[in-house]
């Protein structure tokens, strides 16, 4: 209990400190007129209070409040990202299980799995949109494309992490491959799987936002970013506010994975990463 209070206090103080540093930077650069690395004014770096105030103002002429618009967009993007995350994690896990059981498949497929990640997502996204038509499904596939890779690589390592002795113990029970998979390999891989899921959770949000751009989807955060980008020179605070909400969504995804990990993974305290 006391531990939790202390932690919340630390997190709160950190946020306040970062906000203070931001405003301090703003103040020093504007009052001295320094222009390196760039000139600071209320357009390049709007005040924090301007950004937060913008959330409570209408998003545009005769439009609902910005916060309402952004939360709707975030919910829209969250659904795409969640679908992409689930698809990617499932594909990544199944792929790792297949690879761990076949050296041949590992040697044949792993280079292509790695190569798939060297192709920029911006090059893949338009193709997916052409194949699947513009819609949340194609956005989910694009998010999945970013999600599956860390899951495959880490889970593969995790599935191989049990000691040779543990495998001999299972052999002494004449355990089937299936039993070895579910009673030894998978439980041993969970810490690896979850560290991959933490990376993938945030990547799936980024994937969904980027996926919305070539799909021409307007309802999500990607659409909002494109839109507010065009008005940056007049209302920079709207884009900043959108970024804050997007970051918040990524953090929410990350925290959901952390919470699931706490529930599922049982480990010696000193082994917890």
């Amino acid at each position, binding site marked *: 209990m006391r531990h939790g209070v202390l932690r919340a206090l630390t997190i709160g103080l950190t946020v306040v400190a970062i906000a203070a540093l931001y405003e301090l930077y703003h103040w020093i650069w504007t009052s001295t007129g320094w222009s390196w690395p760039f000139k600071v004014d209320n357009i390049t770096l709007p005040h924090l209070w301007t950004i937060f105030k913008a959330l409570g103002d209408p998003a545009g002429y005769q439009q609902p409040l910005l916060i309402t618009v952004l939360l709707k967009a975030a919910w829209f993007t969250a659904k795409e990202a969640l679908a992409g995350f689930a698809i990617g994690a499932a594909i990544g896990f199944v792929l790792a299980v297949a690879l761990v059981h076949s050296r041949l498949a590992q040697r044949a497929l792993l280079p292509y799995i790695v190569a798939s990640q060297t192709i920029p997502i911006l090059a893949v996204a338009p193709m997916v949109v052409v194949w699947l038509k513009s819609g949340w499904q194609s956005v989910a596939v694009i998010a999945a494309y970013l999600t599956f890779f860390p899951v495959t690589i880490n889970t593969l390592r995790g599935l191989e992490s049990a000691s040779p002795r*543990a495998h001999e*113990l299972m*052999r002494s*029970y004449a355990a089937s491959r299936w039993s070895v998979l579910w009673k030894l390999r998978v*439980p041993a891989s969970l810490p690896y799987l979850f560290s991959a899921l933490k990376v993938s959770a945030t990547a799936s949000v980024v994937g969904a936002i980027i996926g919305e751009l070539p799909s021409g989807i307007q309802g999500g955060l990607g659409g909002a970013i494109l839109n507010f980008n065009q008005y940056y020179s007049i209302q920079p605070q709207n884009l900043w506010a959108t970024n804050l909400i997007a970051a918040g969504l990524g953090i929410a995804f990350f925290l959901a994975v952390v919470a699931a990990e706490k529930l599922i993974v*049982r480990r010696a305290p000193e082994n917890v990463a």
Partner: protein
Amino acid sequence: MPVVEISALTKTFPKGNVTALKGIDLQIEPGEFISLIGPSGCGKSTLLRVIGDLTPPTEGTVLVNGKPAPKARADHDYGMVFQDSVLFDWRTVSKNVGLPLEMLGWDRAKRKSRVEEMLRLVELQGFGDHHPWQLSGGMQMRVAIARALSFEPSLLLMDEPFGALDEMTRERLNIELLEIWRRLQSTVVFVTHSISEAVFLSTRVVVMSPRPGRVAGIVDIDLPQPRTNDTREDPRFFEKVTEVRELLRGVGADEHGSVLAEAGS
């Protein structure tokens, strides 16, 4: 029928062309407690692993309960205990002990009552819901023994199970192990590099020589049962320890079990 029947067993590892075991003949009768002792590199652990079909023999035959070793393994004829307790961190003590029972398809209620019985046997009642990392090394080893015995195998294979424990814990576990052995009337093959441990526990001590591993001699330990802490102070105990030690000297090992000639080779 002997529990273990080994004839003309040879084991070579293709890597580096090492002959680990050569021409081993050994019969183990029901209810025996056999220790395998010898300098490092004498193949005692390999012999245990061949009996358990964790590695196949190169030549010769190994019968367990009259069956080829792979068949015996498939029939769950033996329980295995390693030097490292190999407990699964993600399982509670109870679930670790019940692991082989899950593999045998026992239902939950039957598993639960057997696990409780086993935890009583190794004096860990009340620790069922703990996780392995919350236990001391000696307690972890007792969980491993409970796990190996949970499905009542006729043969218990132990590969230096107490090697990593301190002297006091080891001596206490020796006595506990003998009690369990007597109560369950099981057969034990026990690998160790401690002469006094081998003599204290065993009905027979098999002394092995290194490179290639052979049986250098077998010492009958006819000390009275049940053995207690007093046994360790019995003059006949020292006689047997000396007999084993002499045999080990003869095969080029000092009393700590390492090979004297190793540095020179």
